[in-house]
């Protein structure tokens, strides 16, 4: 066995918002292998789904994950509307895309804040989360809640965005852009962040394809896949936007992709708002009598990548089988490639770079609370190590 030490991160750890256990097998300072023991968030959602009616399933899948709370209903809506052969009204398409893109913004902001925290930039963390608050307020104005919005239903959306709200939505977004410029500038130009993230946690194009990784994790390595472009749904084919990619595949590239995607999201929302103003208010759903027997696959681009839902129905009121695959399920597995061979202090930011959402992965997952004050246990050493490394680099530069 030699000099191998085992460093556990978890199951409850300050670094992670959700409980799970990583075991890093280290040889001195270098990580040689990683084992991931999971199951702490397993809630049996797929099985639960079989006992719920289709309307109830929307509420269930919304709670797969608190951050990507819209992506699961989005993919599930695509799935069930495929089985029921339903075309939703245009207004519903725009509203769905607006909610989806707002979620992307808030999720990426959350991640940038956490990444800042892992690297020791607590100011970045505090400021980014402060600038995230107006987005959450916007959610509350439109949907009534900061997450778990219950906006989606079979055939459309549950609530309209009244046209008289659109100027205030535009105003909040306009105020957000200069803040985003500030954050992007601060992160992308900082030499210490360059030193901590460039060349760290690299995933090559081949790795991405082998692990079937998706989302910004894949796009940062040059694999330009994005469900919104590949298999367009909702309003995405009706507005102009581009897929953001980077080539290097390291943590810096993943950060860059997420930051630039936020600009695209704001642009998409603004275009959707423009279109909404010209559509009659109120036509936001079609009535669906029943869901026929059949099989459907639906996917959507969540902030972390492709969410995939597969359902088999038999003409009854509940699914026969409902399979959910969250993006983190395939992305987390890439830890084997991106963390092995790194030092322990780099392992943590590499782990965080794929933006793992454990709740989605064990979809049978747990609700993620914003104020996740989960019971904390274990050492803060890893976080400290990461902060120390940043300090050392800062002193040298």
């Amino acid at each position, binding site marked *: 066995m030699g000099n191998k030490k085992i460093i556990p991160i978890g*199951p*409850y750890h*300050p670094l992670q918002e959700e*409980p799970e256990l990583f075991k890093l097998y280290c040889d001195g300072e270098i990580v040689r292998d990683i084992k991931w023991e999971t*199951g*702490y*968030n*397993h*809630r*049996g*959602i797929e*099985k*639960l789904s079989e*006992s719920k009616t289709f309307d109830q399933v929307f*509420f*269930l899948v919304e*709670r797969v994950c*608190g951050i990507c709370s819209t992506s699961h209903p989005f993919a599930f809506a695509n799935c069930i509307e495929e089985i029921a052969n339903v075309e939703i009204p245009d207004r519903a398409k725009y509203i769905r895309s607006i909610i989806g893109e707002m979620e992307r913004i808030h999720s990426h902001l959350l991640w940038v804040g956490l990444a800042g925290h892992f690297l020791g930039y607590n100011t970045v963390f505090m400021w980014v989360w402060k600038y995230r608050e107006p987005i959450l307020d916007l959610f509350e104005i439109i949907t009534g*809640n*900061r*997450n*778990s919005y219950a906006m989606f239903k079979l055939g459309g959306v549950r609530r309209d965005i009244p046209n008289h709200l659109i100027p205030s939505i535009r105003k909040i977004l306009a105020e957000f852009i200069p803040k985003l410029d500030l954050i992007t500038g601060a992160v992308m130009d900082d030499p210490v962040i360059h030193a901590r993230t460039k060349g760290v946690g690299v995933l090559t194009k081949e790795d991405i394809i082998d692990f079937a990784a998706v989302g910004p994790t894949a796009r940062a390595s040059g694999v330009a896949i994005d469900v919104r472009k590949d298999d367009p749904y909702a309003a995405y084919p009706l507005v102009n936007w581009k897929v953001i990619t980077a080539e290097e595949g390291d943590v810096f590239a993943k950060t860059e992709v997420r930051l630039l995607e936020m600009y695209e999201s704001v642009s998409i929302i603004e275009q959707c708002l423009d279109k909404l103003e010209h559509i009659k208010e109120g036509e936001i759903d079609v009535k669906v009598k029943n869901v026929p027997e059949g099989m459907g696959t639906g996917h959507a681009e969540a902030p972390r990548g492709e969410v995939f839902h597969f359902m088999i129905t038999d003409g009854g009121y509940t699914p026969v089988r409902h399979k959910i695959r969250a993006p983190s399920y395939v992305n987390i597995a890439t830890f084997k490639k991106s963390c092995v061979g790194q030092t322990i202090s780099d392992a943590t930011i590499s782990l965080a770079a794929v933006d793992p959402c454990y709740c989605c992965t064990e979809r*049978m997952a*747990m*609700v993620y*609370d*914003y*104020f*996740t*004050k*989960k*019971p*904390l*246990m*274990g*050492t*803060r050493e890893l976080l400290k190590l990461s902060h120390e490394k940043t300090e050392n680099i800062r002193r040298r530069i």
Partner: protein
Amino acid sequence: MQLVGSIRHADVLLVSGSINQKDKIRLLELYNQAPRPILVVAIGACACTGGIFAEGNVFAGPVDQIIPVDAYIPGCPPKPEAIIGGIVKLLTHPPFDSSLSRERGGTGGESTK
């Protein structure tokens, strides 16, 4: 209010989310390691009653079936104002049979399963 790195430095244990069989073991461990007195708060519908996941096959019971709970903050998810409000209420008016009064010589005994 400060988040601490280890349960041994804590005065309040906040538990959110639904507890499955695996979590139950860890939760009991944490509770046993916690210094007394410790206040336990169950945050969210899942911690209070199991919420939407209560019929799941791995659900291990709402938190108060595992460790004694001093305050419940319902919601799915609870708004930040609700969480703050709940904790302030707990700290300013600890309930009669909470752990605080238990530790100060009240009726001892825990109702863990």
